[in-house]
């Protein structure tokens, strides 16, 4: 069970209210269409959660999280696409049994790297391992050579640019700019029905909470404290006998894995994956979700993601031209005025009052207890 040592009071409050919101209130009050929209937002919350680990705690700003989100999403999409491209479904193609976009690009046999995605087990392994491995390679190359800060941010951004251009350019293998569409079933279970969407929503919430608990666990170990220490005094950590690079690699890999899980969820929920979720723009938007929620706050990341995406949907439905002004303003406002985001505002303006209330009540009861024990002749604490 979750005890008070694992979560402190305000974290427990955050955890329970988030659980209540996602698992009870939203499913009760939203129709399937809106719930599916929330499910889509939540897939970004995985990325935001990863960024809390690597940016908030580790101080490593990655502007390429879309790459990992996309990799996870594409791995899932490849499995679903293969299932949707059975010989029976594709008999009108010149080569039946391969995805339609391959057929359009005169590819006549399934490429080798697609083959493992016939198996769901291998697909799940790929979703978890491939992005993490890429993060490991990038991280090892950069952090071992002490590349960090802005340089790391820009290079990850360049990698996001490369990934998008590559996916769009290699349309025979990736589906190009349209991405992988027309995904239908997961092991024969139709993921497009309303019923499936609701089940997938609850599955996603479950996985998200598993990730939140994992992140909280990491935060509370010595590793979590070393990340914080590293962000402030990298040299001191190094000269306390730690390999700073390895810890950064770990944080970056963890963030990549969270992002990849989110990407896979996205594919399942929305039924397609495309390069528009991989590149520079989506990657940096994912950073702002974290910043709005509070870069140090695990729950803030989820709330921030939900809020920004909700605003985006509202604004771009009614005033599309206002959205970019709003988003741009948000970047500036968060940096200039609310560096700790929503969780900072909560902590400074709301939690303080709650604390004071509780402190008043407990001091009253303590006083009562002290009087009582004094009366009993017992030593007061």
């Amino acid at each position: 069970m979750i005890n008070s040592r694992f979560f402190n009071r305000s974290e427990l409050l955050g955890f329970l209210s988030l659980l209540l919101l996602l698992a009870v209130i939203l499913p009760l009050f939203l129709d399937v269409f809106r719930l599916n929209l929330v499910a889509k937002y939540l897939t970004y919350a995985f990325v935001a959660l990863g960024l809390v680990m690597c940016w908030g705690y580790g101080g490593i700003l990655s502007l390429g999280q879309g790459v990992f989100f996309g990799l996870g999403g594409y791995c899932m999409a490849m499995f679903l696409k293969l299932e949707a491209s059975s010989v029976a479904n594709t008999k009108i193609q010149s080569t039946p049994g391969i995805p339609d976009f391959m057929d359009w690009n005169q590819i006549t046999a399934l490429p080798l790297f697609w083959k493992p995605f016939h198996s769901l087990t291998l697909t799940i392994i790929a979703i978890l391992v491939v992005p993490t491995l890429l993060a490991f390679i990038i991280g090892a190359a950069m952090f071992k050579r002490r590349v960090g800060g802005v340089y790391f941010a820009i290079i990850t951004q360049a990698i996001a640019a490369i990934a998008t251009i590559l996916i769009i350019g290699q349309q025979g293998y990736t589906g190009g700019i349209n991405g992988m569409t027309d995904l239908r079933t997961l092991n024969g279970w139709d993921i497009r029905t309303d019923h499936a969407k609701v089940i997938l929503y609850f599955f996603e919430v479950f996985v998200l909470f598993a990730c939140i608990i994992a992140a909280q666990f990491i935060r509370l170990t010595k590793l979590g404290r070393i990340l914080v220490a590293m962000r402030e005094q990298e040299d001191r950590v190094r000269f306390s006998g730690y390999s700073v690079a390895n810890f950064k690699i770990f944080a970056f890999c963890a963030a990549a894995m969270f992002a990849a899980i989110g990407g896979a969820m996205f594919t399942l929920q929305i039924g397609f994956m495309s390069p528009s979720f991989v590149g520079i723009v989506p990657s940096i938007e994912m950073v702002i979700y974290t910043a709005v929620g509070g870069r140090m706050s695990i729950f803030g990341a989820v709330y921030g993601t939900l809020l920004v995406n909700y605003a985006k949907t509202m604004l771009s439905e009614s005033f599309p031209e206002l959205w970019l002004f709003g988003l741009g303003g948000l970047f500036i406002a968060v940096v200039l005025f609310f560096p700790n985001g929503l969780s900072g505002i909560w902590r400074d303006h709301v939690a303080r009052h709650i604390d004071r209330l509780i402190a008043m009540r407990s001091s009253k009861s303590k006083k009562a207890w002290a009087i009582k024990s004094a009366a009993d002749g017992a030593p007061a604490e």
Partner: protein
Amino acid sequence: MFGDYSIGDLGAIFAMQGFAGLILFSVYVLMALGLAIIFGQMGVINMAHGEFMILGAYVTWLTSNFFQSHLPSLFSGYFFVAMVLAFIASGALGMLVEWGLIRHLYKRPLDTLLATWGLSLILQQAYRSVFGAREVGVELPQWMMGSKQVTDTIEVPINGIFVMVLTLGITMVVAYIMYKSRWGRQVRAVVQNRVMAGAVGINTEKVDRYTFGLGCGIAGIAGSAFTMIGSTGPTSGQLYIVDTFLVVVFGGAASLFGTIASAFTISQAQSTMEFFMSGSMAKVLTLLTIVGILMIRPQGLFALKVRK
């Protein structure tokens, strides 16, 4: 991929693509120059640098339209006027931004990165609202069109030569300002020791503002050059920011020569490869090579060994 061509053909192809890449080279140099000055001076990565460039491009477009409709007799010279106006417009906007935003964010490089990204989104939407979402192109005056026949197989575009000469001129002026003038000495003094520079009577705020303005102004000129290789749209600048930053880092930040050499290498590699494969694959290969090299040699090509 070279198998289908004879040596002579290859030479001609490389030369032609090389000259075709001159404008790209110029845009890179001018953009990188501005970015490097700002980065070197205040440790600020200006993610909105591409939008300052695009402002210059729009100003150039407006100027060309104005000359076409009001002063058609002077049209051949509009480009010079446009460049000056582009410099002034982008520079002025830069100083405004420094005053309103950047000066609050010194010493927080990652935050400036996010804030200037936000600024770039706002500018993009502003361009879209003012100039429309459609891309616009400018008409070149007669004397800049066409090309000079050097040999049977090699032609040199005149506008490419023109822009490159201009770029080298601007680079020299900037080098003079930064390394020889009194103002440049003040700038470098502020870079090296902000507190001390302030203590000996240098107005560091003013130095910062003008430096940022200068960097953005040069980006505006880059925008003028840019109108010759591409049409101008609200988001055209965004594509260049990553490239330009890679140019700066690849050359080794703080090295003027390095910046020029790396801009040359990157633009030439890109332009040459474009002949042999699709533009997108050429771009992927160029970027991938640079990122690969930077992973092995993060300090860039021409970095000095400095005491940390």
